[in-house]
């Protein structure tokens, strides 16, 4: 059970990292890490969480889903609806309180809807916002909605034995359909504009973003840590063996009498829910969610992170997501110094995508086990 050995190490590193960030944060420490970078780190942890789910479904169960970011986005929309409703309602109530006649509940609700939807030319509450005035219901839906979509989609797909590349393309079609659906203004989730201003937490207006950012960072770290422990437990037992068996030879496992479809469906749905949670933590830090977020390319990136980190190793997924997204932030953030080669200046902003793309190719060709494979290599050398 070598894989379980990674759990204490991972948790220790994560805890140390969280502590370090806290000590250097603006809210509770020296201020060496700016609020914006704290947010970047918190968001990166959420991406790591999504990558962890991706690793479970692809690295362990062999289902290359190119649609898991759809679940991530649904989680974000779930929390976003509550954030927008609650924040706007507070503004509206404060404003209507100035009215000579006290407002009725219907007036507050109408004015809130107008405030939220006038941007996209609407004034009524769409049906999908029904639960948005309750934080508890919203939190439940953050897990339930992605889970339900994953369950239905997975049930349809696995039942008719859609596997391999076909499944990848089908999941890609699913996320494309969802993003196109959300793009429509008539859908009721504000179309291309999506939900914005999510960093302003209702009821916490007096608390600065410096503290909110670190709280979300902690929450993200905790979610990642807990999920890591859970995932490690899940893949180390008998369940893990069966799932790995499905990855390596689905038919053989089926002939051994296991209900392959049920196992796959369970993993697919579970990871969909994890992605939903990750999204719900991510978007209040990002501040805005819109349909572009769940375009097919986002899910492909998720797979690429896992591939670069190393499939079939939980820490690999985390490393891949963290390294690639942080490097991207660094190179496109205008911080990397340009390299001047006399005649020709390399501007990182321009050349980073090329480098990234070629990096994918090189990793696929020469390091099929990813960066996690490097970790294995060194760990094993220690042992001998």
């Amino acid at each position: 059970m070598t894989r379980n050995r990674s759990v204490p190490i991972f948790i220790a590193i994560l805890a140390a990292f969280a502590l370090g960030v806290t000590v250097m944060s603006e809210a509770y420490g020296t201020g060496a890490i700016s609020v914006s970078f704290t947010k970047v780190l918190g968001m990166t942890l959420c991406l790591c969480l999504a990558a962890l789910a991706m690793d479970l479904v692809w690295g362990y169960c062999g289902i290359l889903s190119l649609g898991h970011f759809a679940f991530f986005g649904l989680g974000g929309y779930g929390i976003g609806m509550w954030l927008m409703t609650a924040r706007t309602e507070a503004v509206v109530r404060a404003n209507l309180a100035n009215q000579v006649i006290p407002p009725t509940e219907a007036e507050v609700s109408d004015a809130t809807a107008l405030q939220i939807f006038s941007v996209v030319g609407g004034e009524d509450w769409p049906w999908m916002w029904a639960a948005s005035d309750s934080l508890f219901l919203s939190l439940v839906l953050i897990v339930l909605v992605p889970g339900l979509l994953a369950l239905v989609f997975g049930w349809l797909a696995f039942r008719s034995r859609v596997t391999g590349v076909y499944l990848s393309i089908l999941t890609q079609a699913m996320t494309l359909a969802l993003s196109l659906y959300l793009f429509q203004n008539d859908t009721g989730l504000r179309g291309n504009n999506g939900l914005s201003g999510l960093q302003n937490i209702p009821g916490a207006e007096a608390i600065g973003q410096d503290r909110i950012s670190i709280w979300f960072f902690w929450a993200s770290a905790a979610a990642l840590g807990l999920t890591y422990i859970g995932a490690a437990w899940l893949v180390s037992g008998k369940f893990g063996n069966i799932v790995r068996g499905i990855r390596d030879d689905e038919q053989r496992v089926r002939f051994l009498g296991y209900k392959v479809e049920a196992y796959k469906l369970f993993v697919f749905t579970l990871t969909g829910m994890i992605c939903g949670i990750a999204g719900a933590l991510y978007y209040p830090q990002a501040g805005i969610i819109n349909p572009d977020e769940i375009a097919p390319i986002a899910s492909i990136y998720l797979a690429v992170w896992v591939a670069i980190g190393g499939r079939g190793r939980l820490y690999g997924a985390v490393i891949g997501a963290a390294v690639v997204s942080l490097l991207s932030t660094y190179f496109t953030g205008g911080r990397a110094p340009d390299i001047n080669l006399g005649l020709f200046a390399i501007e990182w902003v321009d050349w980073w995508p090329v480098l990234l793309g070629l990096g994918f190719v090189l990793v696929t060709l020469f390091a099929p086990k990813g960066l996690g494979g490097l970790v294995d290599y060194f760990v094993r050398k220690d042992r001998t």
Partner: protein
Amino acid sequence: MADNNTPIRIHVAARAKYLYTPEGAHMKKLLLASALSLVSAHAASAEIRVGILHSLTGTMAISETTLRDVMLMLIEQQNAAGGLLGEEIVPVVVDPASDWPLFAERARELLTVHEVDVIFGAWTSVSRKSVLPVIEELNGLMFYPVQYEGEESSRNVFYTGAAPNQQAIPAVDYFLEELGVETFALLGTDYVYPRTTNRILEQYLLDAGIPQENIFVNYTPFGHSDWSSIVADVQALGEGGQQVGVISTINGDANIGFYNELAAAGIEADDIPVVAFSVGEEELAGLDTGPLVGHLAAWNYFQSADTPENEAFISAWHEFIGDENRPTNDPMEAHYIGFNMWVQAVEAAGTTDVDAVREAMYGLEVPNLTGGTAVMLPNHHLAKPVLIGEIEADGQFSIISQTDPVPGDAWTDFLPESAVLVSDWPGLECGMYNTETETCVQIQSNY
């Protein structure tokens, strides 16, 4: 050097205000931090930083890279002319990569890490809405250079592009009055600018006596290329026996397929005129404009404007970019006006402090490139002339109508819920003031 100390000290004070919290312990730490940053600001040599927040990669790069370039040119010119307040202006370019959440992240970085004094940036409405909460929280300052759907007035944003009443309404008036159009096809890309603009226009047309059944509305996705059925639908509108006109809020490269299909169907401007709000010189560069001659666009600026200022601007631009064929367009003029206004405001205020600059901005007049001056209004919009141009065979527009300066209207008069709202920052300290109840609906923006 004595000169240089003033702005920096005020700068720190401004930041202290934002970080202010009641807890004493926190306050102490903060003062320490302020002192530290005063030192570090000194060490970094006196300079004024201008953040440029335009996408250099991704789908919006097609439009936004030009704006980065024009900003770099304007800053270079200003530095050559002696800088600002005796200091050099340093541009800080970041790439939000057409990724809307990244706009918020980069804006925060610009304001807190790079400590820029002002941001010029954003193109799409959603990117602006993404940035809004951040700059309002950190009391930053942004100049937004693109025509947009209105219904907004942030304390921290100056809108140098056109509001609907500075582009869409005059163009529709032109259709109604001059072309006698009675059946309207409102074609747009499915996002907030066309949606809101069309909503305003629909109401405007109904008020003007055009019946609902004579207004055809269609929305297509970004980058749409299959236009044949839609063009056929528009043609079929002619069976009502009335003059048909198309109002296009189609965005970006989808226009290429649309105009190609129009040209293929042989629809000339005399049969069915098309007026576009998102098609400028830049978009026409990707097209064979021969068959499109006579179709219209409404902007506040065309490259063909025949004034000495414009001539100088164009030749400077060509020299800067090293390409005689790169066109200039309306958002570039908006940045030109915005940057010059900001420079004047900073000089008037003697500092780059956001609140002081904001106060100095109101009523400022700078020459625009079409002859005349642009004035900054209390609602953070400009008064600018509206130009209607016809597409010519060489990819330029010939200006056929130019109005007197039209004051930009933050809240449209043509939607009942907006008609009661006004924005007046210096007078009312509010961007969304309800004139009926005489209350400020909200200080922060509606994002």
